[in-house]
């Protein structure tokens, strides 16, 4: 009897998992990224547990700027998933526009973060000030690097989509961008609100 499942080479699906190879690779990559950010967050949480006095240092971070950046990332997650939806409907120009808006969101996020860093350094809070500020700059800096990496990937995919190529990659950069959003969802309360 002939199987209804298409061969992996023809459809891009892995027969054993019923998941496209690209998406499967992205999930494995994101699982490894979870351990990278999770390791930092885990050690930070334990150190906060041991040092309740860190809450006074966290009170110097800018809640309004962090909240605004959370709104920006949540909104860019919406635009990137709408780009994926547009690809599913075959509307590549609309997908490219949504990816462009997502890029704009990433740029706004980085500008606000740069403003925060300059404000905090002007106030005398540098990575060498204390362990709290080392964690603050380390975690938000690593996150910002991931935002920059995501923006480069989204720009490359958007250029391809505008030319009608490799539309399936929209989902893959989208998965990565959502992950960056999820990391920030935890960094925001840990570094800003828990003060």
């Amino acid at each position, binding site marked *: 009897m002939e199987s*209804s*499942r*298409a061969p992996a080479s023809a*459809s*891009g*699906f892995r027969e054993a*998992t*019923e*998941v*496209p190879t690209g*998406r*499967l690779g992205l*999930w*494995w990559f*994101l*699982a*490894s990224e*979870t*351990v990278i950010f*999770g*390791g930092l967050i*885990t*050690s930070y*949480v*334990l*150190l906060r*547990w*041991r040092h309740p006095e860190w809450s006074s240092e966290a009170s110097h971070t800018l*809640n309004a700027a962090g*909240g605004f950046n*959370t*709104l920006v990332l*949540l*909104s860019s*997650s*919406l635009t990137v*998933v*709408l780009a*994926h*939806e547009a690809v*599913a*409907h075959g509307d590549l120009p609309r997908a490219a526009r949504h990816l462009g808006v997502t890029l704009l969101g990433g740029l706004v996020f980085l500008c606000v973060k740069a403003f925060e860093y300059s404000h905090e350094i002007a106030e005398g809070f540098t990575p060498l000030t204390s*362990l709290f500020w080392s964690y603050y700059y380390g975690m938000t800096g690593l996150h910002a690097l991931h935002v920059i990496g995501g923006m480069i990937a989204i720009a490359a995919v958007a250029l391809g989509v505008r030319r009608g190529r490799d539309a*399936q990659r929209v989902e893959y950069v*989208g*998965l990565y961008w*959502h*992950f960056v*959003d*999820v990391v920030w*969802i*935890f960094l*925001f*309360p840990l570094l*800003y*609100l*828990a*003060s």
Partner: protein
Amino acid sequence: MTSEADRPAASHPNYVLIWGILVSALLVSLFLGYMDLPVVAMVLIFTIAIVKAWLVIAYYMHLKYEPFFVVAIVATGLACLYFLFIGLVPDIVFAPSKGGAP
């Protein structure tokens, strides 16, 4: 078998509605951040953060619609974190204080 193009389009929720819930949750978190009930506020803030992360992972990343194999990949990363957390507790939280030690 559901095709790649059909998978999210056929069963996805209203993405804008999910965004509205996420933004509402953010506003509640910001409000709680200024409350004078630190413990209660912190519990609520981190509960809201977990719910927000779940909404993004389940509906925007479509984990809710993925086969068990993909869920297992995510669970593997989270399991590593759990063991890391348990393993670090004695070294960080319950270790005796020394001069200059973290």
